[in-house]
C-alpha cells in the first residue's frame, strides 16, 4: 500500500501538455493508480467523496489501446457527465477488456477546485509494460 506523500505516479513535463508515469504492483493496481493520476491533476482528490458509483466497460485492440480507452472513458465521466472520480475498483481485467467501478461524486464548484482543464487523453507515448518489480505505464493528456 502506498502512502499519500509517495503517490504511485509522477507528472512529466511536456512542451504543450502534461504527462504521467504511473506504476503498480499488479496490472490492476496500475490502472487504479492511473485514474488517481488523471483526477489528481484535475482536482485535489482529498475533497472528492466516494458517494456514488459509475460502472465502465472498456475494450481495446491491445493493452496499450485498452489503457488509453480506459482513461478516455474516465475523463469523459467528468467532461461529459460532471462526475469526479476518487478511486476505481477493477473487477475484470484482461489485455483487451476490463470492467470497473469508478467511485466518486458529482462536481461541486463550491467544494472542488479545478486545477487543470484536461481536455483529452492522447495516444502519444502511451505504453503499459511489465517490469521486474511490477507494472508501469505512461500517458500524455492535452490541457
Amino acid at each position, binding site marked *: 500500500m502506498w502512502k499519500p506523500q509517495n503517490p504511485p505516479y509522477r*507528472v512529466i*513535463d*511536456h*512542451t*504543450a*501538455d*502534461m504527462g504521467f508515469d504511473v506504476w503498480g504492483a499488479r496490472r490492476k493496481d496500475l490502472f487504479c493508480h492511473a485514474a488517481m493520476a488523471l483526477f489528481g491533476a484535475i482536482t485535489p482528490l482529498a475533497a472528492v467523496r466516494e458517494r456514488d458509483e459509475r460502472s465502465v466497460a472498456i475494450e481495446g*485492440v491491445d493493452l*496499450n*489501446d485498452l489503457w488509453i*480507452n480506459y482513461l*478516455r472513458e474516465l475523463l*469523459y465521466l467528468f*467532461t*461529459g*457527465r460532471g462526475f469526479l472520480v476518487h478511486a476505481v475498483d477493477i473487477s475484470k481485467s484482461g489485455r483487451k477488456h476490463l470492467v470497473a467501478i469508478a467511485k466518486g461524486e458529482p*462536481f461541486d*464548484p463550491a467544494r472542488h477546485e*479545478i*486545477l*487543470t*482543464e484536461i*481536455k*483529452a*487523453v*492522447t*495516444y*502519444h507515448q*502511451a505504453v503499459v509494460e511489465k517490469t521486474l518489480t511490477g507494472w508501469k505505464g505512461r500517458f500524455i493528456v*492535452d*490541457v
Partner: protein
Amino acid sequence: MLRQLDAYRWEIPKSGGMKVPGLIYTSERLMKTMGTDESSKQVKNVAHLPGIVKYSLAMPDVHWGYGFPIGGVAAFDLDSGIISPGGVGYDINCGCRVMTTKLSYEEIQNHLPELMTALFQNIPSGVGSTGPIKLSHKDERQVLTDGAAWAVRQGFGTPEDLEATEDGGVMAGADPEKVSDRALERGRPQLGTLGSGNHFLEIEIVTDIYDEKTAAVFGLRKGQVTVFLHSGSRGLGYQVCDDYLARMVKNIHKLDFPLPDRQLACAYIATPAGRDYLAAMACAANYAWANRQLLTHWSRETFRKVLHKSPQQLGMRLLYDVCHNIAKIEKFPMGGTLVELCVHRKGATRSLPAGHPAVPKPYAAVGQPVLIPGDMGTGSYILVGTEKAYTDTFGSACHGAGRVMSRTQAVKSSRGRAIVREMADRGVLVMASGKGTLQEEIPEAYKRVDDVVEVVHQAGLARKVARLRTVVCIKG
C-alpha cells in the same frame, strides 16, 4: 538530416519510407528553439502518409504536437490520400478574428479598466464555463449545420460578419449524425464561452502600418482600437477528434501501410471513416464559428454600454475570421492544372492572394487578411495572403507564436513574480479566470511572434500589413 535551401527554408531529404521530402520554413534564430523538441521528426513522420503531395510542410512557429506537429501543413490527393484528425488538431477550428473600430486609443485610454472588467463579466471564460445560451438538441444540430449563420439569424450579428468570415462562417458537408452523443453533450452547455489556456479576447491598438495600400483596403489605421478574439470549438471539437481517433486506431491493423506513430491514425479520404470524419469535423468547425460570432456580438454590446456610443459611432466591423486547425478540400495548381486536394492545416492559417475566389470581394484587389496573434505581452500582426503561399505552401502561413516552454516550466519561471503587475508595467491590463493561467501564459513561454512573422514575410508566404499592441487581455 536538414539541408538548407535558402535563408528561410530547410529540407528534410526523402529517405526510408518518406513519400515526399519535408520542408521547414524557419530562420537560424528560430532553429535554436526547434532543436529541443521532436517537431522535425514529426514533419518526417507525416511524409510517410499515403497520397501526400509535394512536401510535408512546417511553418516557422512549428512545435511538437500529437502526430502532426503544430504548425504543420500537408496536402493529400483525394483518391489515394488520407485524412487524419491529428493533422487538424483536437481543437477543431481553433481560430481568430479581428474587429476594427472607429475609435482611437486616446478615446478609450481612461476606460480600459472598466472595459476589461465589463468584457470579463460579459464573456464567459475559464475551465468548465457554461454559456448563457440554452440549446435544445434540435438547436444544437442547427448550430452544427449552419455555423455563424445560425448566430446571425438569432440576432447575434450581421450578414456582413458572415461575408468577412473564412468560408462564410459555415463549412459545407456538415452532418450532425456523424457527431457522437458525447460530443453533443460536451458542446451543448459551452456555446458562447471563450475557453481557457491560450484562448483570449484582447483590445489591441494598431502601432505600425507596413503596407499603406492594403491597410486602407482593410480599414486599418495607426492608433486605431481593434478587438482580437482567439477561440475554438470547445469540448465538442475535442470529443469529435477523440472519437474519430479511437475509431481509426481500432482499424490500424487494416491499413495497408505502417504508421510511424499511433497519433497519426488516419483513414483514406475515400472511405466511410474518412468521409464521416470530414462531416463531423465540419460540424465542429461550424460550432466554433457560431461561438466566435456570439463572442463578437457580446464584445460589441460591452463596448456600446461602457463607452455609451451607438453602433454607428463604434463602427465595430469584422475585418476577417480565420481558422488555424482545419482540413479543407481546396484547389491548387499542380503541373499546369488545378487539382483538388485535402489540405490539413494544424496550427497554420490559410493565405490566399488577390483575385482568388475565396477572398471576400472587398479585399479582392489585395488578398486575404492573415491574422497572427502573439503572446499576451506582445501583440499581434495582420498580414495579407500572397501568390507565393498559393503556389508553394498550399495557401498557408503560420498561426501564431508557438510554445517553447512547457506549462510546468512556465509556472516555475513565474514563481515569486507578480504577473499581473509585470504585464501592467508593460502597458497590458490582464484578467484571467483560472488561477494558473497567467503563469502558464507568460510571454517567455512562447517564441517571439516578431521572429515568426518575419520569416513568413521574408519567405513571401504572407506580407506584413500592420502590427498591433495589446492593451487589455481577457483569458480563461
